C-alpha cells in the first residue's frame, strides 16, 4: 500500500478515537469545563500535560534543529524539561491548594487587585494566542503534505476536529483526548527511532544507540564529529566559541518560561489533591523525557545519514525522497562548480545544498528506507501533537474570557449554566479565530514565540513564586515588577529582532545575549524591583497573609470551595 493510503487509514482511526472520547467526556458544569471537575488521576494528568506541552514544534522541528545545531541544541532539551522541576517544586502543589481555575485568578486574589488580574489576563491571552496560530499552521502543513489536500482544507479539517471536542467537553474532553494523543505521538516518534537505531548501531534503544558503535567499530558520535569537521562544520558534540553565555541564558529563559505558561499551570488544577499535583508533575516530565531523550538520538542518526547520503555524491543518483522535497522547495541544490556532485559544506560560497531544518523528522523514515506505514504513523503523531497543544491553549483563551473577564468583571451574577454557555461560545470563537489566523499567518509568528517564553518568564513566573514564598510581597511590588519585567523584555526583543522592525544589530547585544535568552534577565529585574518596591510600601492585608499561610499547607485542598 502507498504512503498516502496508509496515512488516510491511520489518521482516520486516530481521529475517530478522539471524537469518541469527546462524546463520552462531555462537560456538565463550569468546574468540569475549566478544570475537568478536579478529578483527573495523576497518571492521566501527566500524560495529558505531556501532550499539551509537546507541540508540533517539539515533535516535528526540534530533532531537526538539534541535528543542525549539535551541542547548542541542548538549550531546547534542557530548557523545555528543566522547567518541570521548577513547576513541581515551586508552583504546582501551592496553586492546586489555592484551588481556583486560572492563573489570573491567583494573581488577582493574591495581589487583591483587579488591575493585576487584568495584566495577567492580557498576558495569558497574548501568550496563548501566539502559540495557537503556530499549531494551526502545523496542522495545515501536515495535512497538505501527506493527504495532498490544499493547505486551507487542512486547516479547516483541523478546526472542525478541535471545535468538536473542545466545545463539547471543555477541559474534561480535552484531557482525555490528550491522553490518547500522547499515546499516538510517543508511539509514532519512538518507532522510527528504534528502527533507525537498529539499522545504524544495532541497538534497539536510541538513547543508548546514540553512544554506540557503527559497523566499522568506531563510535557513532566520533564518526559524526569527523564527518562534520571534514566538511568544515563545527564538531557536533562541542560547544562553539560564543555559545556558552547564550546556551546558559536561553536554557534559563525556556525553563522559567515553561514554569510560567498558563496552559501548563492550569493542568495542575485538574487533579484532586496537592500530593497528586506533585506526583502528576513527575509523571508529566517522565512522559516528556521519553521524547526529549529520543530526539537528540534521532538528531544524530539523521545528521549522520544525511551527510553520508548526500555529501560528494552525484546529484543524479539521489533517492526519491530527495526529489520529492526538492519539489516543495524545502531542499534546494545548485551545482555551483558544475561537477554534478553535491558539495554540502560549511563555507557558504562553496555550499551547494540548502535543507530546511523542519523536514528532518518527516524525512528521516524515508532517508532510512522504513516501510510506508511508519511514515504514515509519523504524520498521525505530528497531527496529534499539534491538535493537543492547540486545544489546551484554546481552553486558556476561552477561560480567560468567560471566567476572568465576563464573570469577574462584567457580569458577576451570571449563573453557572450561563457561564458554561459563555465558555462554550468563547472557545468556539477562539477556535475559529485561531484557524483564520492560521490560514494567513502573520510573518512574525515564529519570531514572537521567543517573546511568549520571555514574557511568561519575566511576568508570571516571578509574580507567582513571590506570591507563594514571600508573604510580605504586596500588590505594589508585584504589579511594578510584572510591568517593568514585561516592558524590558518586550523592548529588548523588539529592538534586536529585525523581523519585528527593530533597529538593533547583534553587535549591540547586552553581554552578547540573544533576544531569545533575555527573558532570564527580565525575570531577575522583575524580582528585584518587586522586592524593593514591596519593602517600601504597606504590607498586604491580613486575609491575604492568611491565604499565603493556607496554600503552604496541603490539607484541605480536596474540600469543596464554596465560591468561585
Amino acid at each position, binding site marked *: 500500500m502507498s504512503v498516502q493510503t496508509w496515512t488516510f487509514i491511520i489518521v482516520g482511526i486516530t481521529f475517530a478515537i478522539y471524537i469518541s472520547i469527546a462524546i463520552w467526556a462531555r462537560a456538565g458544569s463550569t468546574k468540569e469545563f475549566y478544570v475537568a471537575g478536579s478529578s483527573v488521576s495523576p497518571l492521566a494528568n501527566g500524560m495529558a500535560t505531556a501532550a499539551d506541552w509537546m507541540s508540533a514544534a517539539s515533535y516535528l522541528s526540534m530533532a531537526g534543529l538539534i541535528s543542525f545545531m549539535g551541542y547548542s541544541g541542548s538549550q531546547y532539551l534542557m530548557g523545555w524539561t528543566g522547567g518541570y522541576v521548577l513547576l513541581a517544586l515551586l508552583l504546582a502543589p501551592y496553586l492546586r491548594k489555592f484551588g481556583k481555575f486560572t492563573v489570573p485568578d491567583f494573581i488577582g486574589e493574591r495581589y487583591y487587585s483587579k488591575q493585576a488580574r487584568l495584566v495577567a489576563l492580557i498576558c495569558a491571552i497574548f501568550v496563548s494566542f501566539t502559540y495557537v496560530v503556530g499549531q494551526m499552521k502545523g496542522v495545515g502543513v501536515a495535512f497538505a503534505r501527506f493527504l495532498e489536500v490544499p493547505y486551507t482544507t487542512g486547516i479547516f479539517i483541523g478546526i472542525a476536529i478541535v471545535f468538536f471536542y473542545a466545545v463539547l467537553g471543555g477541559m474534561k474532553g480535552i484531557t482525555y483526548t490528550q491522553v490518547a494523543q500522547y499515546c499516538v505521538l510517543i508511539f509514532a516518534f519512538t518507532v522510527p527511532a528504534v528502527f533507525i537505531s537498529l539499522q545504524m548501531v544495532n541497538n534497539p534503544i536510541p538513547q543508548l544507540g546514540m553512544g554506540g558503535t557503527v559497523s566499522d567499530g568506531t563510535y557513532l558520535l566520533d564518526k559524526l564529529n569527523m564527518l562534520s569537521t571534514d566538511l568544515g562544520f563545527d564538531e557536533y558534540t562541542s560547544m562553539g566559541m560564543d555559545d556558552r553565555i547564550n546556551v546558559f541564558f536561553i*536554557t534559563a529563559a525556556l525553563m522559567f518560561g515553561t514554569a510560567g505558561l498558563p496552559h501548563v499551570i492550569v493542568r495542575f488544577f485538574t487533579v484532586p489533591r496537592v500530593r497528586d499535583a506533585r506526583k502528576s508533575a513527575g509523571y508529566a516530565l517522565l512522559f516528556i523525557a521519553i521524547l526529549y531523550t529520543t530526539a537528540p538520538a534521532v538528531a544524530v542518526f539523521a545528521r549522520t545519514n544525511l551527510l553520508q547520503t548526500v555529501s560528494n555524491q552525484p546529484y543524479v543518483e539521489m533517492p526519491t525522497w530527495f526529489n520529492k522535497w526538492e519539489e516543495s522547495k524545502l531542499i534546494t541544490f545548485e551545482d555551483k562548480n558544475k561537477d554534478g556532485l553535491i558539495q554540502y559544506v560549511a563555507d557558504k560560497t562553496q555550499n551547494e545544498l540548502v535543507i530546511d531544518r523542519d523536514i528532518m523528522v518527516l524525512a528521516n523514515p524515508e532517508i532510512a528506507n522504513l516501510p510506508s506505514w511508519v511514515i504514515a504513523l509519523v504524520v498521525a503523531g505530528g497531527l496529534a501533537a499539534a491538535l493537543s497543544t492547540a486545544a489546551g491553549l484554546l481552553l486558556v483563551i476561552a477561560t480567560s474570557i468567560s471566567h476572568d473577564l465576563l464573570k469577574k468583571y462584567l457580569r458577576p451574577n451570571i449563573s453557572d449554566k450561563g457561564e458554561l454557555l459563555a465558555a462554550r461560545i468563547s472557545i468556539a470563537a477562539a477556535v475559529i479565530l485561531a484557524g483564520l489566523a492560521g490560514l494567513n499567518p502573520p510573518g512574525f509568528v515564529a519570531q514572537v514565540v521567543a517573546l511568549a517564553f520571555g514574557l511568561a518568564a519575566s511576568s508570571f513566573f516571578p509574580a507567582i513564586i513571590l506570591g507563594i514564598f514571600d508573604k510580605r510581597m504586596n500588590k505594589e511590588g508585584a504589579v511594578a515588577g510584572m510591568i517593568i519585567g514585561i516592558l524590558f523584555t518586550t523592548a529588548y526583543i523588539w529592538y534586536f529582532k529585525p523581523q519585528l522592525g527593530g533597529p538593533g544589530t547583534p553587535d549591540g547585544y547586552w553581554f552578547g545575549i540573544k533576544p531569545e535568552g533575555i527573558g532570564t534577565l527580565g525575570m531577575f529585574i522583575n524580582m528585584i524591583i518587586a522586592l524593593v518596591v514591596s519593602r517600601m510600601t504597606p504590607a498586604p492585608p491580613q486575609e491575604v497573609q492568611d491565604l499565603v499561610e493556607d496554600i503552604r499547607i496541603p490539607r484541605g485542598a480536596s474540600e469543596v470551595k464554596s465560591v468561585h
Partner: protein
Amino acid sequence: MKGNYLNGYWKQNIRYLIMLLSIWFIVSYGCGILFADNLNAFKIGGFPLGFWFAQQGSIYVFVILIFVYVHLMNKLDRFYDVDEI
C-alpha cells in the same frame, strides 16, 4: 503554638527545595553548560561526558529529582499531620 509548629514544616520544605534545586542547577547549568568543555575530556561509552549531561543526563536527573521530592514531601506531610486523607 500551632503557628510555630507549622513553621518547622515550612522550614524543612525550604531545606528540601534548596537541596534539590542545587542538584538541578549543578547537573544542567554546571555539568551541561559551564563545565561541559572540561567534562568532554572524559567519555562514557561513546559519549563525551559534557555532551551527555547536556542532551541526556540532565533530563534523567530532572525526572528523578521530582520523584524524590514527591517522596520527601509525602513523608513530611504525614510527620506534621498536614496530609490529605
